[in-house]
């Protein structure tokens, strides 16, 4: 009786600990083994790591969790990798293929030292951000390989079917295997060629979490945290610790600082003006400041610099010239890269500086019919001068919006305006 209880405890502990360890260690271990074998053998590396976790589930539920579960995982994975190499060499010599067995023997043994892990993860980030793959494929791959997300979790984040993600990943992995990317020694040339794509992937990963339509709060927050974690890996290596990397980190820290404040207990989005500023995370704001200062230590101004600077102004108390500064930053941002959302945000800020009527002229010129944010903007710009038009445009926006929580906010605003209109 007592023994049974004890076993139940063990199973319970294992069930709680393993998913956590999996998320934490899976990508690290895969990166280390894959870097050892080469990118072509990424599936083998993944199999070895999966086998290791399978063994952990079996062993730990019987014997209990070892004192140092991570070290246990590393040892088992290391031995499995060694076994694989041994079998591989025998099999290859049998069929008479001249393999690079010398190469394999000369190689150092796999180790899971902290430096090896961070070097391997860095190399893996650059391998995954292959320019031959689409943006979506790169993010999906990053989530699966670098962050240990399941296909279902990725599908949930993108709001698409698991089947779509599966196909996307298969295609992307093929590109990865056929690439000649040298994952063993990440060199300066490779870094220079891909750093922009790596930054963009991390940026998109973060935005996917921050602005995602997915209602799964935990997954969205995880996406943001993972993006920050990957960027921190870049910041740890002198070759990738550029001012742009720091700008990206500053931006993500500022945005994340408002994570708790921008959603209420019903899972509805709370607009910036209505957020409880006491819920803003000061620690993250301070970190953002730290990275922003680093970011502006050079002469380069990337779009991440500008977006981080805008986010900085949003976290500061209202200053008389705040919106003027933000408008100038948006002017610069849109010169670097046009995007409808930047054009819309710029017009919103324009209204805060020069008034809604002046901003309406700007809004008419940008003419983004079909974009529901455009109608939201028009609804806002008409809200002081023409209630009928304002209600009309908010209605159009509510119809076009795909997000439940956004529809709710818009309906609330429409009802408020209707009462005023009576």
């Amino acid at each position, binding site marked *: 009786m007592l023994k049974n209880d004890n076993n139940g405890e063990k199973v319970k502990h294992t069930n709680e600990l393993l998913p956590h360890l999996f998320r934490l260690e899976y990508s690290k271990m895969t990166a280390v083994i894959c870097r050892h074998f080469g990118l072509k053998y990424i599936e083998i590396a993944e199999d070895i790591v999966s086998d290791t976790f399978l063994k952990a589930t079996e062993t730990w539920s019987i014997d209990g969790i070892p004192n140092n579960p991570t070290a246990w995982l590393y040892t088992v994975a290391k031995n499995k990798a060694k076994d694989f190499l041994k079998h591989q060499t025998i099999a290859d010599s049998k069929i008479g293929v001249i393999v690079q067995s010398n190469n394999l023997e000369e190689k150092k043994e796999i180790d899971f030292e902290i430096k090896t892990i961070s070097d391997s993860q860095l190399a893996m980030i650059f391998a995954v951000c292959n320019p031959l793959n689409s943006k979506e494929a790169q993010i999906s791959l990053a989530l699966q390989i670098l962050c240990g997300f399941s296909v279902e979790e990725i599908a949930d984040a993108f709001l698409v079917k698991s089947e779509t993600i599966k196909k996307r990943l298969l295609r992307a992995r093929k590109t990865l295997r056929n690439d000649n990317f040298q994952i063993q020694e990440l060199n300066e040339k490779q870094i220079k060629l891909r750093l922009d794509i790596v930054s963009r992937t991390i940026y998109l990963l973060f935005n996917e979490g921050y602005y995602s339509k997915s209602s799964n709060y935990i997954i969205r927050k995880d996406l943001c945290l993972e993006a920050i974690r990957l960027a921190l890996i870049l910041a740890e290596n002198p070759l990738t610790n550029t001012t742009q990397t720091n700008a990206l980190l500053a931006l993500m820290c500022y945005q994340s600082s408002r994570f708790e404040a921008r959603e209420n207990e019903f899972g509805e989005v709370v607009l910036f003006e209505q957020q409880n500023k006491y819920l803003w995370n000061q620690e993250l704001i301070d970190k953002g400041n730290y990275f922003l200062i680093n970011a502006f230590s050079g002469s380069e101004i990337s779009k991440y610099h500008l977006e981080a600077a805008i986010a900085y102004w949003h976290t500061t108390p209202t200053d008389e010239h705040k919106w003027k500064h933000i408008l100038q930053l948006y002017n610069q941002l849109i010169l670097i890269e046009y995007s409808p959302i*930047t054009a819309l945000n710029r017009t919103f800020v324009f209204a805060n500086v020069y008034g809604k009527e002046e901003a309406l002229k*700007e809004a008419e010129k940008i003419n983004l019919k079909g974009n529901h944010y455009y109608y939201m903007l028009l609804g806002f710009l008409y809200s002081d001068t023409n209630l009928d038009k304002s209600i009309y445009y908010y209605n159009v926006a509510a119809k076009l919006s795909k997000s439940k929580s956004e529809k709710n906010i818009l309906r609330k605003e429409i009802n408020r305006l209707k009462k005023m209109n009576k």
Partner: protein
Amino acid sequence: MKEFVLIFRHSNKDTAKPSPEQMQERMNWLGGIAAQNKLADKGKTLSISSAKTVKPNNVVTDGPYTEIKEFISGFMIVKTETIDDAVELAKANPIFKIGGNVEVREVMVPPDVKK
């Protein structure tokens, strides 16, 4: 879409040092064009003080080429359907407040590139 170069001209040398307000106005104008996705190249501002004109027979004179008293202060490229659309964009430029003008010129496309 066609591309048009906007060439900015001045006769007043004081305009080389714009006030913060003037800078802001220019940036708002430029940002407004970019927000319509009609900016092809934000171009360059040209120096007035550091300028030479090279003429035949190795004759070099100080300053920009100015038969009339005007000089070019900068240029940029917009992309619009017609030259009239480009002119509309130019009309809103704050340069007119300080006595400047804008020349609008379509960028020639080699015949074999045209469809």
